[in-house]
C-alpha cells in the first residue's frame, strides 16, 4: 500500500515537473525586431525609446511599473511607502532596501554603492545625462550598509518614484562605469555597448544601429528564468516591414511599434501567424491654442508674447467652437485605428488621474456655429466669418508626418463648414521640436494661431506635466523661447493648485487636484484641445507566450517571463 502511494506520488511528480520547473534557456532563441535600431545600451546617454527598451533586457532599476502603471519591486526588496517607513513623514527621505544576494551577470554582488554611483554618474555636471530630470532634487544619498540606500531630497517628494525607477534609470555597475563619469562617457564605448547588468539577459555582441545579440544571464535571480537561451534584437527598415516579418513571414517573434495604417495592419494579421497588441499610456495628440498674437506685423521681441493677447483666440467661445467642430472619432479611425481612442483629456491615464470629461466626443457643428454667432463673428459674403472687418482666419501648424497632414486636411474642412478659414503649415519634425532659439518655426516659439503635436509624461504621476502650464513657464524672448507652456496660458488659480499638488501626498487627494487642473486647461478654458489618446501597438507571433504590453515602462519589461508556446 505504502509502496503504491509512493509510486503514484513519483508518477505525479514526474508528470508535474515540466510545468512546475520550467528551466532556464530551454526555449531556444527569441527574435525581436525594432525598426529603429538601438544605438547604445546606456540609457543615460540616450533618450530614445529604442535604446531604453533594448537596455532593459540587461540592466534593471530598483522598481519598475507594471502594465497598470503600478510600481513594483525589481532589485528592491519592497516598495518604500509611508506605511512601511520607507518614506519619511516629511516626504523628504526615501529608504530603499535591496533584495539580498543579488548578483551582477559577472558574478559580483550588487550593493548599495552601485546605486549611489548610478546617481552620481547621472548627476555629474559634465556628463550630459539624458535622464537628469529623474534625479532632480536629490540632495544627498547615503549607504549605511550594503543593502540600504537613503535618498535625501531638498523638498518634500510626494512621488519619489523617478530616480532608480522605470527603464529610464536603471542601476549601473560601479566597478564597470567608475571611469566613465563626466567627460569620460564618450571614451567608454565598450561599457556603453555592453553594460554588466542584473537583468534576464547579458550582451554577447552589440552592433550599433544594427543588431544586439544576447544570452541568458547565468546569475539571474530567478533560476528558472528566462526561458529563452538567446535573444536577438534586430534593427532597421520600417514599421511595415517589421510588422510583416512577424505577422506574415514569421521570421521574428516580436515587432515593436508597428505603427502602420490600420487597414494595412489588419491585412497582415489576416495571415494568422501573429497577434497585434495595443496598450494605452499618456500620449495625447492635441491642438494647442495660442493665447498671444503671433502676427508678423508686431515687432520681433513682442510677437507671440504676453504683451499682445490673441485678437481672435482670446475669446473662449471661439476656442470652444473650434473644438466642437471636430469629429474626434473619425480622426482616430483614419489616423490610428485600434491604436487610438478619442479623448478630451490632457491626462488620459492612469485611471485615477483621468477626469470623466467626455463632452467633446460628439461633433456639434450647429452648436459651434451658434457659439461663433454669439461671439459676434458673422458670416461674410465669401462664407468666412468676420467681426469688425477682421476675417476669422487661422494659421494651423504641425510637424511633417502623414497622419498629421491628414488630420490637418480634415480639420480644415470642418472649420471651413463653420466659417473659419485655415491656412496650413508643416514644419520638419527636427526643426519643429528642435528647440533652436534662433528658428522661427519651433513649437515653443509658436508663430501660428493653433498647432498640433503629441506629448506625454514619464511614469505615472502627472504633477510635473501639469506644472508645465504655470505662468512662469511661458516661453518668451527673455527665456530664449524655452518653456513648456507654449499656449502662454496664465491663470493664478491654476498656479495655486499646482503648489497645493506639490504638498499633497495622499493619492486620492492628488488625483482630485490633478483632475481639476486637467479640466481647467481642457474643457473649462479650451486652451488645449485634446484629440486622440494614442496607444502603443506592437505585434507578436502566436508561438510567443507571456507578452504583456506595458506603456508605463519598457515594452520588454517582462521578457524574463516570455516563453515558446508548444
Amino acid at each position, binding site marked *: 500500500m505504502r509502496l503504491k502511494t509512493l509510486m503514484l506520488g513519483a508518477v505525479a511528480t514526474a508528470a508535474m515537473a515540466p510545468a512546475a520547473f520550467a528551466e532556464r534557456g530551454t526555449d531556444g532563441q527569441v527574435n525581436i525586431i525594432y525598426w529603429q535600431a538601438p544605438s*547604445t545600451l546606456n540609457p543615460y546617454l540616450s533618450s530614445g525609446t529604442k535604446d531604453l527598451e533594448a537596455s532593459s533586457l540587461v540592466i534593471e532599476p530598483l522598481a519598475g511599473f507594471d502594465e497598470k502603471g503600478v510600481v513594483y519591486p525589481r532589485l528592491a526588496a519592497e516598495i518604500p511607502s509611508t506605511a512601511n517607513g520607507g518614506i519619511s513623514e516629511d516626504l523628504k527621505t526615501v529608504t530603499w532596501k535591496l533584495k539580498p544576494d543579488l548578483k551582477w551577470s559577472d558574478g559580483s554582488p550588487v550593493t548599495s554603492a552601485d546605486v549611489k554611483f548610478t546617481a552620481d554618474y547621472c548627476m555629474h555636471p559634465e556628463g550630459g545625462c539624458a535622464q537628469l530630470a529623474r534625479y532632480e532634487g536629490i540632495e544627498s544619498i547615503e549607504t549605511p550598509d550594503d543593502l540600504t540606500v537613503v535618498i535625501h531630497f531638498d523638498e518634500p517628494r510626494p512621488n519619489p518614484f523617478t530616480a532608480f525607477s522605470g527603464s529610464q534609470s536603471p542601476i549601473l555597475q560601479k566597478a564597470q562605469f567608475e571611469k566613465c563619469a563626466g567627460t569620460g562617457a564618450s571614451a567608454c564605448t565598450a561599457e556603453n555597448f555592453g553594460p554588466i547588468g542584473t537583468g534576464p539577459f547579458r550582451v554577447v555582441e552589440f552592433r550599433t*544601429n*544594427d543588431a544586439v545579440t544576447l544570452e541568458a544571464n547565468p546569475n539571474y535571480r530567478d533560476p528558472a528564468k528566462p526561458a529563452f537561451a538567446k535573444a536577438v534584437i534586430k534593427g532597421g527598415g520600417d514599421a511595415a516591414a517589421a510588422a*510583416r516579418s512577424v505577422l506574415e513571414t514569421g*521570421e521574428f517573434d516580436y515587432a515593436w511599434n508597428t505603427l502602420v495604417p490600420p487597414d494595412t495592419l489588419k491585412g497582415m494579421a489576416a495571415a494568422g501567424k501573429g497577434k497585434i497588441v495595443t496598450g494605452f499610456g499618456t500620449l495625447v495628440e492635441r491642438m494647442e491654442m495660442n493665447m498671444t498674437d503671433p502676427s508678423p506685423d508686431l515687432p520681433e521681441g513682442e510677437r507671440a508674447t504676453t504683451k499682445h493677447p490673441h485678437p481672435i483666440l482670446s475669446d473662449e467661445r471661439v476656442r470652444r467652437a473650434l473644438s466642437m467642430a471636430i469629429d474626434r472619432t473619425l480622426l482616430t479611425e483614419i489616423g490610428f485605428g485600434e491604436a487610438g481612442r478619442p479623448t478630451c483629456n490632457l491626462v488620459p491615464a492612469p485611471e485615477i488621474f483621468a477626469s470623466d470629461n467626455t463632452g467633446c466626443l460628439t461633433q456639434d457643428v450647429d452648436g459651434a456655429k451658434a457659439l461663433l454667432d454669439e461671439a459676434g463673428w458673422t458670416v461674410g459674403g465669401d462664407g468666412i466669418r468676420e467681426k469688425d472687418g477682421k476675417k476669422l482666419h487661422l494659421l494651423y501648424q504641425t510637424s511633417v508626418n502623414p497622419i498629421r497632414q491628414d488630420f490637418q486636411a480634415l480639420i480644415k474642412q470642418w472649420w471651413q463648414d463653420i466659417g473659419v478659414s485655415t491656412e496650413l503649415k508643416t514644419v520638419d519634425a527636427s526643426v519643429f521640436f528642435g*528647440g533652436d532659439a534662433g528658428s522661427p518655426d519651433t513649437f515653443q516659439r509658436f508663430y501660428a494661431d493653433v498647432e498640433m503635436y503629441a506629448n506625454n509624461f514619464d511614469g505615472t504621476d502627472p504633477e510635473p506635466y501639469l506644472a508645465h502650464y504655470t505662468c512662469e513657464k511661458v516661453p518668451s524672448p527673455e527665456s530664449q523661447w524655452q*518653456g513648456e507652456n507654449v499656449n502662454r496660458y496664465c491663470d493664478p488659480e491654476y498656479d495655486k493648485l499646482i503648489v497645493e499638488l506639490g504638498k499633497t501626498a495622499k493619492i486620492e487627494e492628488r488625483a482630485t487636484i490633478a483632475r481639476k487642473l486637467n479640466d481647467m486647461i481642457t474643457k473649462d478654458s479650451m486652451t488645449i484641445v485634446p484629440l486622440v489618446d494614442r496607444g502603443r501597438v506592437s505585434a507578436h507571433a502566436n508561438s510567443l507566450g507571456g507578452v504583456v504590453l506595458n506603456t508605463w515602462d519598457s515594452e520588454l519589461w517582462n521578457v524574463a517571463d516570455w516563453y515558446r508556446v508548444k
Partner: protein
Amino acid sequence: MLVYALRRLLLAVPTLLFISLVIFLLLEASPGDPLGDIPLTIPAEVKEKMREALGLGQAWYIRYLLWLKQFFWVEPLHWVDHVFGTGFSEGMQRIISFQTRSPAFDVIAQRLPQTLTVVGLSYLIGLLIALPIGIISAYRQYSWFDQIGTFVSMVGFSLPTFFTGVVLIIVFGIKLQWFPSIYDTTHRVTDWGSFVVQVRQMAMPVTVLSLFNAAQISRFMRASMLDNLRQDYVRTARAKGLGERVVVLKHVLRNSLIPVVTVIALGLPAVFGGAIITEQVFKVNGLGQLLILAINSNDIPMVMTLTFIFAILIVAFTLVADLLYGVLDPRIRYE
C-alpha cells in the same frame, strides 16, 4: 608616370580640404538639430547639458578644426597604436558619433565587410553579366539577343531599386517564402549549412543590385564595341585573314574596354558608399544605412566622416582611371 601620379596626389590635398570645408558648412547651414529627436519629456535644461556634452557649445570653426585634427592626426595615431601596440593616441579624443557616442571609425569598420560582401559582390556579378552581354549585343546588333539585352537593361535602368526590391520581397519573401525578407547581419558562416543560409539571404539584395549595375555597364560596353567594330583596323584584321574570335576578343574588345574601364573604376567608390536604398529595403545595415541614419539624426561627425571618405575614394579612383588609360592604351603617355 610616377611624377604625374605624385603631382596629381599633391593637387588632391587642397581639393579634399576644400571639399571637407564645403561639407561641413553645408551640414552646419542645414536646418535640424542633433537633439531634435529626443522626447518632449526631457526638460530644456537637461537638453542644454546634453548639447554641451556633445561639444556643440563651441563656434563652428573650432569644431571644424577639431574635426580636421581628429581625422588627420588622432585617428591615424590610433591605428598606429592599434597595429604596433604603442600609446601615442592615449587620452586623445577620437571622432565621436553623436548618436552612439562611440568612435565613428569603429562603426564604419564594423559596417564595411557587410557592405563589401553584398554591394561588392553585386558589382562583380553585374560586371560578369554586363561584359558578355555588351559584347554579343554589339557583335550581333539588332539580333533577337540584342533586342532582349536592350529590353532587360532598359528595365534594369528604369526601375528603381526600391521598387524591384519590394517586388522581390513580396514575391519570394512573403508569398513563396524562399528567401528571408530581413537580412541577418549577425550570421556567421562556419560550415556548409550556414553558407547556404548566407547565400539565401544575399540572393535578393544581390540580384536587385546586379541587375541595376549590369544594365548600366552593358550599355557602355555595347556602345563602345559598336564604335570600334566600324574602325578601319577591324577591316584590316579581317582582310589579313584573322579569325573572328581573335578579331573581336583581342583587337576590338581591348580597345573598347578603355572607356568602360573608366566607368567601372568611377563606379567603385559607390561600392564603398553602400547602396542606401537597397540596404534599407533588405535591412542589410551597411554603410548606406549608416549614412542615411546619421543624416536623419543630424549626426554631424558621422556624416562628415563618411562623406569625406567617399570624397577621398572618388578622387583616388579618378586618378586610378586616368592611370589605367596609360596602361591600356600605349598611345597615351603622361609626362
